[in-house]
């Protein structure tokens, strides 16, 4: 029987005249695509192994390589797409669930691309951020409904303010565990967050002892596997996030393959080296909202009510009532991860078919909490596929307090979103634990690039809100009058709570 495996998605185009046989590609490619044949003095490339990460292209000193899409096609068919046919071939061969990495890549409506922003003309002046102060400072945590001031002597604040995270820009790094990403990647995230004045998130993999010094800029996660959760870990962070779900894989747990569980990861996660790290689908002590409340308060007790405790969920159909329940259960913030949120490893069928986009989730959660008069009680952090500063600003205008970015941060460090994180062979040294690969990521340079990204987006946000005549981010938050929808139907506009383009105030 002829082997029926899917063709490679990529073709390597090598310009033999440019190639100097340095063999860098052959040495470096973790997927063993390139090999040198000394007898013929040529480098041959096995296209079937190529994942399209473009690392060889980036390091080739003579630019002899181009990684292209493989033009080989099945008969065109809108139902039986190449992807559908190939997935069947893979499963017929393996008998297993197809894994993938990063966020959903299907062409569901990206609402960000259907929302346009406002700007001032004549009647109120736009503000130039190069000349006027423009404030992005953001606080995450429970806010009081009213403030009382004691005027009996010197005016003094009489209302106790719950613990808050103070951000210089409304952008944080989202949860990525040590294990799914490398030590150097974690280090760069931690440093960039600390130096810029925002926060990074440990994900569910615990906090390596070297990173405790970044604790004041760290959100520590408590997930269903409870990896690395100790008293010291909880105390080290600036805030605690209970992870219930993730946008890329709502309803299921996590799986870090044993090959990625090296000694330092085993130590950080408190599991034996080389064993699979499986986090269960539900928390085995949370089967109801009451149970969640108990965990929230157990964590608050354990940290003496000194830190905000929040809950991360995947955006699903019922996200609004669920969020309301979570706020009433005592969470100081809710992190909502939309269906385009990334992952180190998830079943493809779940990543591509479960959940709702973050845009809708922000809109319905913000509206619901306002209707119930509890919006002040918790901050909303939105996550799931933020690609640019305009996505961020739209999220805030819809009602988010801040956003989490992860894929964008990885791209800043080299990632090309090839979706192969789950293989542990990341050529860019990001989603891997192989020391040969991880040393490719220089933490100093990566830190600088992350800070550059935060700076660039913050500048762009300042330009855009200045254009609206706004000089403090809180005047944009939930200000949906600044948004207009294009190419959306009436129901979608209603759900997003925005007017169509062309309609005045």
């Amino acid at each position, binding site marked *: 029987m002829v082997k029926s495996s899917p063709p490679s998605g990529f073709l390597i185009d090598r310009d033999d005249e440019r190639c100097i046989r340095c063999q860098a590609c052959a040495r470096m490619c973790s997927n063993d695509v390139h090999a040198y044949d000394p007898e013929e003095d040529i480098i041959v490339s096995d296209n079937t192994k190529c994942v399209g990460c473009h690392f060889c292209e980036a390091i080739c000193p003579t630019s002899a390589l181009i990684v292209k899409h493989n033009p080989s096609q099945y008969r065109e068919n809108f139902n039986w797409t190449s992807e559908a046919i190939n997935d069947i071939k893979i499963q017929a061969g393996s008998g297993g669930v197809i894994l993938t990495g990063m966020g959903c890549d299907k062409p569901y409506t990206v609402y960000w691309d259907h929302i346009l922003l406002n700007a*001032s003309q*004549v*009647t*109120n*002046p736009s*503000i130039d951020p190069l000349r*006027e*102060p423009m*404030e992005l*400072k953001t*606080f995450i945590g429970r*806010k*009081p*409904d*009213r*403030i009382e*001031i004691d005027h009996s002597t*010197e*005016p*003094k*604040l009489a*209302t106790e*303010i719950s613990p*808050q995270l103070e951000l210089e820009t409304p952008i944080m790094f989202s949860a990525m565990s040590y294990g799914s990403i490398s030590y150097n990647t974690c280090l760069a995230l931690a440093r960039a967050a600390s130096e810029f004045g925002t926060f990074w998130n440990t994900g569910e993999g615990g906090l390596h002892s070297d990173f405790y010094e970044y604790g004041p800029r760290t959100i520590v996660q408590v997930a269903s596997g409870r990896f690395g959760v100790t008293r010291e870990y909880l105390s080290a962070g600036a805030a605690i996030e209970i992870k219930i779900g993730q946008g890329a894989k709502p309803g299921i747990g996590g799986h870090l393959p044993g090959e990625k569980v090296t000694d330092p990861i085993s130590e950080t996660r408190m599991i034996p080296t080389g064993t699979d790290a499986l986090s269960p689908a539900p928390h085995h002590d949370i089967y109801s909202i009451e149970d969640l409340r108990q965990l929230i308060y157990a964590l608050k007790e354990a940290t003496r009510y000194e830190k905000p405790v929040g809950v991360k969920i995947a955006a699903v159909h019922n996200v609004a009532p669920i969020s309301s329940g979570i706020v009433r259960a005592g969470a100081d913030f809710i992190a909502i991860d939309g269906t385009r949120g990334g992952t180190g490893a998830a079943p493809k069928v779940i990543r591509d078919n479960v959940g709702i986009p973050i845009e809708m989730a922000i809109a319905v959660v913000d509206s619901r909490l*306002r209707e119930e*008069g509890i*919006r*002040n009680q918790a901050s909303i952090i939105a996550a799931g596929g933020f690609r640019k500063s305009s996505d961020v600003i739209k999220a805030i*205008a819809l009602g988010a307090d801040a956003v989490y970015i992860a894929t964008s941060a990885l791209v800043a460090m080299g990632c090309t979103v090839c979706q192969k994180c789950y293989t542990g062979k990341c050529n860019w040294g990001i989603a891997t634990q192989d020391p040969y690969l991880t040393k490719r990521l220089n933490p100093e340079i990566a830190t600088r690039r992350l800070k550059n990204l935060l700076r660039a987006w913050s500048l762009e946000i300042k330009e855009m809100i200045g254009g*609206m*005549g*706004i*000089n*403090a981010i*809180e*005047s*944009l*938050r*939930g*200000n*949906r*009058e*600044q948004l207009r929808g294009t190419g959306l139907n009436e129901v979608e506009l209603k759900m997003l709570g925005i*007017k169509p383009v062309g*309609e*005045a*105030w």
Partner: protein
Amino acid sequence: MVKTRNYPNYTGLIMRRMEIDRGGCSLFGMMDETGEKFSGAQVVKAIAKMQDRENGLGGGFAGYGIYPSFKDHYAFHLLYNDEKAKELTEDYLEENYSIEKAEPIPTRKNTMIMAPPLLWRYFLSAKETKVNNGIDQDFVVSTVMKINREIEGAFVISSGKNMGIFKGVGFSEEVGKFFRLEKYKGYAWTAHGRFPTNTVGWWGGSHPFGLLDWSVIHNGEISSYGINKRYLENFGYNCTLFTDTEVITYLFDLLARKHGFDFNVIGRILAAPFWDEIGRLPDNQREICKALRMAYGSALVNGPFAIIIGHTGGIVGINDRIKLRPLVAARKDGILYLSSEESGIREVCSSPDEVWMPEAGEPVIGKLRGLDG
């Protein structure tokens, strides 16, 4: 300014069309802090001086202390499109209030004032049986909201005690003459000349905007409208008029009456100091300002504005946090003057003791002596 969507179903004279009120606008405020009363003629004269800043599509005045014989009654000023609206409104008022007196608001013929609506005033006290939480101010607020939202062709422009708002479509000077303001005496007055762009104004949409004894006149446009409105909805305020002025009035009612803040604190909420500035304050002040920005971020009024608020206790002028609209203040012999331009002040007070430009976000407070708040 006035926004155009979902406006209440008014027709005809009162509600011509609600559209944008932006651009110029002139403000004037004057109060005698000793409580000495003076006639409305002075403010009419002052606002007339700044006629360049208006375009004849709206003018209005608020006077305090003008109804001494009914000082314990809520003075409602009503605009009606027709007799039917009047009938429905009066039925509703009779059911809920004892009406001490009802009369047409006296006016004089003025060819410059086109097609005025029916103008009536009522002196009312709430029936005790109707006020369930014992706070009749909340009941009055709900009455105003109900009439304005539900009775077609009726609009309450003024609802405070011992004060009144007089406004209409036309140049402010003509509106002042039309209402015979020289016949009223008050200790505090505010005046507004309006420059709405691209539309005909309507009577109810002119300034001052009032609720209880609050009156607000406003020059500017606020970019934070969307969130200010949603914030107020949390507290039961329905912004039916889609105007910035309405939002500012409700914010004052919420912050001053319900949350009990003085005007200095309210200034730090509506025109919050920048974080840099807050960082330089002494500890206790810094803590207060930081907490206010955290808790009341959605009440920050962002965008260019100069406003003068009137209330029983006095008048307050305030600018946005980077002062994008003009506001000048002056004092002479116990009288505080606030004006868009100094010319307005000089018109009625040729040699003030001091004239100054208030800093961005810094409230200028005129306070009636011997009265709390």
